Every structure is written in C-alpha cells, then in structure tokens.
C-alpha cells in the first residue's frame, strides 16, 4: 500500500448516514475532538501488532504499538473501549503475549482482545492465559452499549481450509442476532474479513456468508476486521465492511504481489501506513475514521 492510497479520502454517505473519513494525522484531532451528540458512543479499533516480529519491514513492532497506545491515550475524548482485532503476537509465544499485555495495559480505556491466527498457532492456550475472559470461554461474545449491539466473532480457531466460524459459533450468533431489533445498530468484530475479500490469499471466512445473510435484515451494520494490514472498505446493502491498518507492518494490496506477507516501505513512510481507527456512533449514524501514526 502506498502513501497516496492510504491518504485517499473516502467520503461515504449512505442511507444509514455513515460517513467514512480516511485521513492523515491532522484529520485525527479534528475527528476525535468533534463535538459528539449527547448519548454518542465512541470506540477505537487497533489490529495486527505482531509482537515478536523482527524483520526489516518493522524491526520495532513493540515501539509502533507503544506509539499507537500513546496517540490513543492523548485523545481529548477517551473512547468507551478499544478493541484489538487480532494478531496481537507473531508466533503465539508466552513471552510475546507478556510483552503485548504490558504495552496494552497502558491504555486508559478498557480493552477487548480477539485472537488472530498468529495468536493461536498450535493451541489457543497462551492467548487465553493472556486475554481470555471467564464469561466468554469460547471468546466469541456479544454485549450492548449505548443502544448498539456489539458482536465479537472468532474466525481463526477452525482453520482448515480458510477462516471459519464453525457450526457451534454459527448456531450461537444466529440466536444472538435473532433476538435483536431490525433498527438496532449492529457492530461486528472479527480478525479475518467476513466476506470473500481475496480468497486466493485466504482473505475470506469460509462460512461467513451465513452470518452476512443474517446481518442483511438490519438497518445499520458495521463489520470491522483486521488480518490484511490495510484499509479496504466494502458495502453490501446496509452492511459496511472495513478492514483496518496494522500497528506492525503493511501488506500488499490484493493481487499486487505474488503472495501476501510483510511489505517493505521506505523507513520514513512506515508510520504513515500504520494506525488505528475511531468509530463514533450516535443514533443511526456511525462515523468511522482511520488515523495513521505519522
């Protein structure tokens, strides 16, 4: 991903009044400090920190995660929570989780952490020891806040063909969504993109279409994922999908390289392709903005 595409401004006003703003750090402050309507809820998404990665694409992934946390902590209005959408570590090693946890614990806002496939290599034990919650033994979970229904999905445990949710989780999410009103704004988190973004590189959830079809009946749905280390937006009816930038290193745009993997950018441009995402929800409006670390 080059700087130009990262900085590309995307304006998006759909029927649900969602505005997407993709901006440089200058935009960040303006967006974050914008007066939010009474009752508005805001949260932040971060993703793909790959603690333990040491290669030239980013020899200091701990440093860029620390910078991300510092930038978030410096925001004038703190979010209700921060969600990390996975690949906290590079190789799921206990010491990598320890490092990640100590950096993430500096956040002022509460943290929700989902696993990526790099966090569950071999087993999910190290992830669960670091970030597991007793009330969500399978990690997938839902909660309500400020009139919004949030759903966290895990599409990395049953990796055999592509990212998969699996029958047990599909059954759970079907019941969870069936209990929600059509007018309730829905926000879905997960690591791997839920739709077939680029299956050739595994950038898809094999059984994701079953969830998408259930989401299609709602007026306002936002699906936020990581995994691909770049911002790609997509819309299907009232469902807006967006993948997030990493805090570690970028990856090539779909089909622009022979294979996925770390993408080397000039050192002085690295911070401009890493970042975090703010989301403001008020009534039926969702304002999503991506901010780089430069």
């Amino acid at each position, binding site marked *: 991903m080059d700087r130009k595409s990262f900085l590309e401004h995307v304006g998006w006003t759909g029927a649900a009044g969602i505005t997407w703003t993709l901006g440089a750090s200058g935009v960040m402050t303006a967006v974050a400090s914008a007066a939010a309507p009474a009752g508005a809820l805001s949260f932040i998404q971060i993703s793909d920190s790959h603690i333990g990665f040491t290669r030239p694409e980013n020899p200091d992934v701990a440093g860029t995660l620390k910078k991300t946390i510092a930038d978030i902590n410096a925001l004038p209005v703190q979010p209700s929570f921060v969600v990390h959408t996975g690949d906290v570590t*590079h190789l799921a090693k206990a010491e990598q989780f320890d490092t990640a946890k100590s950096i993430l614990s500096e956040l002022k806002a509460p943290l929700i952490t989902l696993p990526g496939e*790099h966090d569950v*290599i*071999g087993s999910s034990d190290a992830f669960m020891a670091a970030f597991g919650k007793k009330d969500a033994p399978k990690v997938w979970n839902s909660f309500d806040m400020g009139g919004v229904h949030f759903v966290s999905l895990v599409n990395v445990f049953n990796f*055999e063909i592509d990212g998969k949710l699996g029958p047990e989780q599909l059954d759970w999410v079907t019941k969870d969504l069936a209990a929600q009103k059509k007018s309730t704004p829905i926000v879905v988190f997960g690591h791997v993109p839920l739709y077939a973004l680029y*299956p050739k590189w595994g950038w898809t959830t094999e059984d994701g279409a079953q969830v998408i079809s259930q989401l299609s009946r709602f007026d306002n749905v936002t699906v936020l994922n990581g995994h691909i280390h770049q911002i790609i937006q997509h819309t299907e009816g009232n469902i807006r999908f967006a993948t997030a930038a990493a805090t570690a290193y970028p990856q090539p745009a779909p089909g622009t390289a*022979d*294979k*996925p*993997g770390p993408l080397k950018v000039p050192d002085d441009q690295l911070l401009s392709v890493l970042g975090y995402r703010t989301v403001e929800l008020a009534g039926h409006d969702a304002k999503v903005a991506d901010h780089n670390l430069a």
Partner: protein
Amino acid sequence: MKKAFAGAVLAMLTLVFSGSASLAETAAAPIVVHIKDFKYNPTPLKLHVGDTVTFINDDDEPHTVTATDKSFDSEALDTSGTWKHTFTKPGTFAYFCELHPYMKATIVVEGK
C-alpha cells in the same frame, strides 16, 4: 519428485565414495520438504514407514506443518526454522499451514 530422485542419486554417490557406507546409512539420506513462496515442495511426497522428514521454512513469513487429522503439528516455524517428524504409520496424510490454510500438501507413507 526431482528432489527425491536427486536425493537417491546423492545417496548412491555417497555409497560409492565412502565405500564403507552401509545400506542402513543410505536409507537415512535426509528427506527434506522446503517451504518457499507459500508452497510445500515436493508434494506429494512418498515415504516409507520409519522415514524422517525435515521441513525447512525458506519464506520470510512463518508457517506451520499441520496434519488435517491433527496427527502431527510443527507449531510455528519462523524464517529458516526447521522441524523433523518421523512417520511411523502407513497412510496418506494431508497437511496444511495453520497461518495460511490454502497452503496444502500431501505425504504418502507406504508400509515396508
């Protein structure tokens, strides 16, 4: 299968040059699967019961060697990481990379 053939030739040369090499030692010629450009090579790989395979990750990305039936699992192999596994049962074993599940390969183990 070119590599397996080359391996056999190498084993024979070793036998010729060392003179004293026993048949047991030729059977122990290293069998290697390289992981490069998100592919396992060679595949399918034919083995005999008791053979040991060394998997080497030549990619910049970490990979795993994970049996679809979970009968073996390398866990994470970082760049230049290696992992050995001895196949003790005959059968056809499909395996894949947990990190990149579209990477698939097969090992066929024949009884002695």
